[in-house]
């Protein structure tokens, strides 16, 4: 290998191209340190004249190499093949169809369990938990509110398909397709019943989370649902300590409490639950000849079996009617109150947006407030963009938050009001049956219902004694 030019280029590493550009502030420290270190070497002199363009210039021309030297190439690993994302959608459709078949026609808990293991492996560990239907809500929201955002078609499919299936078959997506549901279903080793009042109260949270996720996504601030996804770090086998700790906490709680994320946080589950109420088919037990044995209720770890109202337990139906009227009157009040409260929160919420926080930082710096400039403010000043432009953009974002936060608050008010009404309203059903909104179609009740066991055995051609209530001995 030879150096370019003559022998005087023995130290090509310091042959800086002289440049009159002044040194940048941050480099002085380095320059001095380097200077002390290599003082006396011609290098030091060259360093003094170091130019400092933001991204380096060719200060040291590369040497002329011997033909024998093979210069390594920079590797450029390709992105995931596009075809594979269509395969994902195809697998999603197949899994949804199979889950619906297994839950509603085959009524097979084992089948659902096997499918959920597959989904956990495919959508969880192989696909690394992303794209997922839960997070896709945010893509949809951002695409609706921001015309500049282009949502990938496959993400759109992950958002829409489970909803369409839920409109016909109930929450079969939750049963055995969602990897987050699958991992919690498998972790549930020692189910403990939670009181139904707690279920109802915590049932508000998924809607609040959904509203917040849409608010922050639609304003282009953050995808909080992805940020606080408890299991994605496990699926990727990589993540911050916070994410891993969150996942571990959910799994440990999930050993005792059935699907804590699905029931008390999952924003997509909230959507699916709403849709599932109007589903054409749902998971049902044997409503014709229910024995009222309550085994299904005991077996359901998710509190989804609705108690039949054999006789109205309320001591005073008139009082209940009065309460319902009062709650119905309270509902608009809660909505207005929520909207007002949301409006109060719009400024703190808007700080989640990078532009707003940068504008506040720049304004504080310009006003002479004490504090170090941040990387963002330094980078902004380096671009030379006028501050007014930044302020205008920040105000526009804040305007979006002013509207969005009010809607969010009003929505939370509506959800609280509707929950209060639904827990007070009388129910008409007379048999034990899964509640379509809460039931995740896991199929546990099938293997516990005595009537269902008999039915399955009969179909298989086995002789079974007819199951009727036995009195006496």
């Amino acid at each position, binding site marked *: *290998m030879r150096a370019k030019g003559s022998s005087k280029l023995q130290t*090509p*590493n*310091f042959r800086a191209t002289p440049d009159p550009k002044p040194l940048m502030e941050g*480099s002085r420290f*380095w320059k001095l*340190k380097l200077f*002390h*270190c290599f003082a006396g070497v011609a*290098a030091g002199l060259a*360093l003094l004249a170091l130019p400092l363009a*933001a*991204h*380096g*210039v*060719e200060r*040291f021309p*590369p040497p002329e190499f011997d033909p024998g030297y093979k*210069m390594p190439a*920079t*590797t450029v*690993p*390709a*992105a*995931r093949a*596009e075809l594979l*994302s269509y395969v994902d959608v195809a697998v999603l459709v197949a899994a949804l169809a199979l889950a619906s078949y297994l839950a509603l026609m085959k009524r097979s808990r084992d089948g659902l369990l096997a499918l959920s293991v597959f989904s956990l492996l495919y959508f969880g560990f192989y696909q690394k938990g992303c794209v997922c239907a839960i997070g896709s809500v945010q*893509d*949809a929201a*951002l*695409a*609706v509110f921001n*015309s500049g*955002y*282009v*949502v*990938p078609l496959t*993400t*759109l499919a992950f958002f*829409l398909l489970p909803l*369409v299936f839920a*409109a016909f078959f109930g929450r079969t997506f939750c049963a055995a397709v969602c990897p987050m549901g699958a991992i919690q279903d498998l972790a549930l080793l020692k189910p403990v019943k939670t009181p139904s009042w707690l279920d109802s109260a915590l049932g508000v949270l998924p809607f609040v989370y959904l509203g917040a996720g849409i608010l922050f996504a639609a304003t282009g601030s953050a*995808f909080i649902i*992805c*940020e606080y996804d408890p299991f994605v*770090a496990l699926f*990727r086998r*990589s*993540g*911050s300590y916070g*994410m891993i700790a969150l996942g571990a906490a959910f799994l440990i709680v999930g050993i005792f409490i059935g699907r804590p994320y699905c029931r008390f946080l999952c924003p997509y589950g909230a959507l699916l639950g709403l*849709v599932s109420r*109007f*589903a*054409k088919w749902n998971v049902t037990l044997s409503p014709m000849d229910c024995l009222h044995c309550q085994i299904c209720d005991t077996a359901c770890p998710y509190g989804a079996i609705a108690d039949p109202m054999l006789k109205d337990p309320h001591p005073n139906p008139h009082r209940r009617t009065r309460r319902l009227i009062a709650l119905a009157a309270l509902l608009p009040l809660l909505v207005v109150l929520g909207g007002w409260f949301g409006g109060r929160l719009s400024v703190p919420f808007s700080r989640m947006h990078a532009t707003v926080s940068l504008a506040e930082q720049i304004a504080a710096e310009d006003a002479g407030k004490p504090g170090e400039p*941040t*990387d963002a403010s*330094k*980078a902004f000043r*380096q671009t030379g963009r006028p501050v007014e432009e930044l302020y205008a953009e920040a105000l526009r974002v804040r305007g979006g938050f002013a509207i969005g936060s009010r809607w969010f608050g009003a929505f939370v008010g509506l959800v609280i009001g509707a929950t209060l009404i639904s827990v007070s309203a009388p129910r008409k059903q007379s048999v034990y049956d899964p509640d379509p909104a809460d039931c995740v179609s896991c199929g546990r009740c099938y293997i516990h219902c005595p009537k269902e066991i008999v039915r399955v055995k009969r179909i298989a051609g086995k002789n079974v004694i007819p199951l009727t209530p036995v009195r006496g001995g």
Partner: protein
Amino acid sequence: MLNGAMRGAFLFLLGAATTVLFRRSQAKRTVWQLDPYKCVQCNRCATECVLKPSAVKCVQVYPMCGYCKLCTGYFEPEPVSLDTGAENQLCPTGAIKRRALEDPYYEYTIDEPRCIGCAKCVKGCVLFGNGSFFLQVRHDRCVNCDECAIAIACPAQAFQRVPADKPYLMKDREHQA
């Protein structure tokens, strides 16, 4: 009956939403990449990525490298000696491999599995060298989140979506001059 009506209404709504969303969607796949000419080497790529270590790593574009003996991307500002001792290296994980060619030239290679994307070497190379070290999203690791956490945190707004078939924004010698 009511259920059927509600279901119909829901499906209608969903259809409307699909139409709106479909117009805003595209089949052409894009991936995240950062513009090395905008990068300010703030270290957030190492800390903000949903992966640990980050999907952003340092790359070396050899034709731009000066093959310097005193590489300011490799050595601490005040090295005890100019050798491969860990105390002399800038890289916190020792991810830069140094190989002696004919004196005074050295070849520097990134040992990617070790690189955490902290950009310490990038800063050194950009400030005092040719800038042949720079950060790139490595697509064998990037999970292509729809909303990239680093892109949100990036103070220089250097992250953008690029076509999946051209997923890198490399520096080159011509651009430099």
